[in-house]
Each structure stands twice: as structure tokens, then as C-alpha cells.
């Protein structure tokens, strides 16, 4: 649905305003998680093209959003029972982004209204699950906030204002991709706001892949788990036998 919205918007932006337009790109459109992967940065960059030379930087904002693939999340709340903290209440959310990064030229509250942020799902406060295991939104609210908080702590959600402008029209922002990000298709969205309204937007896909041995092991473990289990046992027994040979040679 958001894709349709975005496409509509692009048409609108092209016909209605026409004064300012956006071009953007990524430093890389594929991130590979390999055995020595400790996280990396990608750079989202772009330029604002302006047809009339009178346009000014005031009232103009750029917002960059990088979203990971949707994921199901289960949030549990601990309760103290007989002195021990035990998970009791649980809430299931469907369709939460597994990764979310937003950066803007000014704090989001200064860029536009909460309604518009909500509509485009811009900002941590606007992240909403597509489904949840309760019909009472008020009951789910603390769990939603806790989920967002947990993701921020583990570096998978972030909200910053560190977009750098190089001169009048060129901008760039570093997007941290920690080692723990899930695989899948990501999108990098760039929005251009003028006086609180979206005047241009662009979306670029980004792929995060596990490559090399790790990926093959992961696939193996999930595609043929029984064989994988036997392989683990075979490796362990081989090691055990080898080390018994070493012991024997030494004694």
C-alpha cells in the first residue's frame, strides 16, 4: 500500500510543484554478511534539483528512511511470581520492520505534522505493526513501545538528524548496518519536504544477504535439519577420535 502511495505521490510531485525535484542513490545496493562481518555503513546520497533559482533552503527538509523486511515479533512481559521473574503476558505483532533507520535535517517534529509522519510511517513513534494479537490497542501500546525500545538498544532501530549537506543541493547520510540485521529486501526512501509537505520522494531497494559459508550452513540447517544434525555429530565424533589418537601418541 505504501508503494502505491509513493507512486501516486511521485506523479503529484511531478505535476503539481515541478519546482524542486530529488535524485538519490546508495553507495551499494547489496550488503553481504560474511564470516568476519562486524557491521558496516552504507551511504545514502542525493541532490535536490531546482528549476527556479529563487528557492531557498529555509522551509526545506530532507528525510531518509531505511526499512528492513517485515518480521513477526513476540514481546513478553516479566512478572515476579514467588520471587522469580517469569514471562507472563505476551503480545504478538505481525509486520513490524526488522530494521528501521530514519534521519532528517531537523528533528521530525519540526519537519511536519504528526499526521503526515504517521501516514508515511516516518519516525520511530510512527512504527505500527500490521497486525497484533489483541483487539484493544491500549493494551498493546506498552508492548509496542517496548519492542521499539528493544530494537533501539540493539542498534536495529535509530532516529537521527545527521544528514550532511555539501553546499546547497548535495546531501548524504551514513546508515549503520549492524552485524545482527536480518537478511532480506530493504528499501531506502528519501523524502523532500517543503513547508511541511512532501514534494518529492524516491525509493531504492537494498539487499542484505548472508554470503559464503554462513549462508550455506544456515540453508543446510533449515532445509535438511536431520542430515545437518548427523553432520554435527559426525564432526564431533571425528574430533573426539582424533584427539584420542593424539593422547595415545603422547603417552
Amino acid at each position, binding site marked *: 500500500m505504501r508503494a502505491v502511495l509513493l507512486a501516486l505521490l511521485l506523479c503529484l510531485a511531478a505535476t503539481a510543484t515541478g519546482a524542486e525535484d530529488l535524485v538519490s542513490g546508495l553507495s551499494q545496493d547489496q550488503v553481504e554478511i560474511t564470516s568476519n562481518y562486524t557491521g558496516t555503513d552504507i551511504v545514502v546520497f542525493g541532490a535536490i534539483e531546482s528549476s527556479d533559482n529563487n528557492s531557498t533552503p529555509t522551509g526545506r527538509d530532507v528525510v531518509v528512511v531505511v526499512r528492513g523486511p517485515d518480521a513477526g515479533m513476540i514481546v513478553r512481559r516479566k512478572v515476579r511470581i514467588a520471587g*522469580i521473574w*517469569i514471562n507472563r503476558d505476551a503480545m504478538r505483532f505481525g*509486520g513490524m520492520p526488522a530494521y528501521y533507520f530514519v534521519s532528517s535535517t531537523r528533528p521530525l517534529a519540526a519537519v511536519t505534522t504528526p499526521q503526515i509522519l504517521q501516514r508515511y510511517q516516518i519516525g520511530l513513534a510512527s512504527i505500527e505493526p500490521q497486525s497484533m494479537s489483541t483487539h484493544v490497542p491500549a493494551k498493546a501500546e506498552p508492548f509496542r513501545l517496548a*519492542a521499539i*525500545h528493544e530494537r533501539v538498544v540493539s542498534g536495529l532501530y535509530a532516529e537521527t538528524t545527521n544528514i550532511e549537506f555539501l553546499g546547497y543541493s548535495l546531501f548524504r547520510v551514513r546508515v549503520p548496518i549492524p552485524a545482527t540485521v536480518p537478511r532480506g529486501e530493504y528499501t531506502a526512501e528519501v523524502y523532500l519536504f517543503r513547508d511541511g509537505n512532501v514534494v518529492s520522494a524516491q525509493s531504492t531497494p537494498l539487499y542484505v544477504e548472508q554470503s559464503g559459508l*554462513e549462508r550455506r550452513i544456515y540453508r543446510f*540447517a533449515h532445509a535438511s535439519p536431520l542430515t545437518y544434525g548427523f553432520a554435527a555429530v559426525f564432526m*564431533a*565424533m571425528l*574430533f573426539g577420535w582424533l584427539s584420542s589418537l593424539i593422547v595415545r601418541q603422547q603417552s
Partner: protein
Amino acid sequence: MEIYLPIAEMSVHWLILLSMAAAVGFLSGMLGVGGGFLLTPLLIFYGIPSEIAVATTASHLTASSMSGAIAQWRRKAVDFKMAGVMLAGGLVGSWFGVILSGLLRAAGQSEIAISAGYVVLLGTVGGLMLNESVRTLLAARAGLSPPPRHQKQYAWVRSLPGKIRFRQSRLYISIIPPIVLGVVVGLLSAILGVGGGFVIVPAMIYILRMPTNVVMGTSLVQIVFVTAMTTVLHAADNYTVDIVLAAILVLGGAMGAQFGVRMASRLRGEQLRLLLAILVLAVGLRLLYGLVATPNDLYTLALGGS
């Protein structure tokens, strides 16, 4: 020096994990224990998800018990018939344990259950070890020999039906106690990732009355196959065996055990046992603290579902 674990889906410092496995291997080589009951909590403290720590330690135990079992087998100190009977129980226990782990995981209680299980286990084992080593040390200081143990079988063991002869152990007993023992060890291995040597070895000596020279070898053979079964089932049902982590643990454990075995001949056994008892109790207390202390964050997040 980071390496990415494909199943745990996290980057770890492999050198730290290797040293942890080597330290546990050293202790186990020196004291003749499997070390699963120390390795699993250490992995959890490091930040490996509990279920993955448990399942992967099982495969590590297969390797470390394997080399011990081969050495004992060369000395002909294995009662294969007894090992087979216990194994029959062990496989059933392991199977139940893996199903139970899966249920606990689905209910979101597996971390708490594993911690609580370890608190009970380490508290009991540590307490018993501490009691015994302090007593022996005191007795040695007073110049007394440790009290002799009675050698007759318990009446309730003798009265059980289904007796068969175990030639190597020179026993004629019911198969029920070894099977029950096997089930207990299988459960422990699947739920907590321990070999269970510290449970079966005393039980084989004091309940089954097996001669001490075959106890070690027989229990090791039993543990090799039960932990192997546990590994396969965890991999097949719960996808929790991380083969890269297992390789690091196996390698570190083997290196540490080499030194441990050599040190064992130079050090006094009773002091070592006292040290181990204190270590076991300390790990148990740390886990207990984790269960009782108010957590920083009451909420936990798990990915999954839809």
C-alpha cells in the same frame, strides 16, 4: 577476531569462546568430569541464546566423551551390555527432553526454565561436592581414613523384577534401575545440555553397585550416544545446533583437556574437588541472581510468528 555464527545469527569473539572451552576442558581433563554443566552457563553469560547454548554443548560433549570412551575401551573397562541398557532409557529421555524444550521455547519460558534447572542442579551437585570434600579434608587433617562404605545392594534394588546378568560388571540385577537412570540422563542432556556424568557415576557406584573400574568407561560410552542423539533431535526439531560454535567448543575443549590430564597427576585431588565445588556453587548463585533480581527491562522481544 570476530566470527559470525550462522545459527545463533550473531558475531562473537571466537578467541574468547575458544578460551572458555579450553578452561572448561582443562577442568574436565583434570577432574574427570564432562564440563557441560559449566560450559552451558558460561555460553549463556556470554550472550549466546540459552537454547542454542544447550543444544550446541550437547555436540561438544559427544566429542569430549568420545575420546575418553575410546581410551577406556582400549583398557577393556567398558560394560557394553550395561551401556546398551542405559542407552535405551537415555534415548527415550532425550526424545522427551527435546520435545519439552520445544514446548518451553514456544511458550517463551525456555530461558527461565534452563536457568532454574541449572540453579537446582548446580546447587545440589555443588553442595554435595563441597560437603564431601570438606569432610575428607577434615578427616585427613585429623589423621583418620575416610569412613568405609557398605557394599551390599539396597533391598529395593534387589527386589525389582526383570533381572539379567551383566558379566563385565559381575552383577545380576533388574534392568529397571539402569533404564530409569538412562531416562534421567537423557532428559538432563536434552533440557540442560549436560552429559550427566556427575549424576550417573555416583548412581552406578552407590545404587547399581558396579565395580569402579568399569563405571567411568561405561558411563562415557552411554554419554557419547545420548548426547549424539540429543544433538540430532535438537537440530531436527528446534534448529538450535550451531555447527560453527560447536567446532570452536570442540577444539578449545580438546586443547584444554590435554593440559588438564597432565596437571591431574601433579595436583592433590581433594583440594581440586573443593575448588570445583566452590566454582559450581558460584555459577549457580550467579544464575539464581539472574532469576531473582529485578531486570533492567521487564520486556523481552523474540522474533518469530507472523
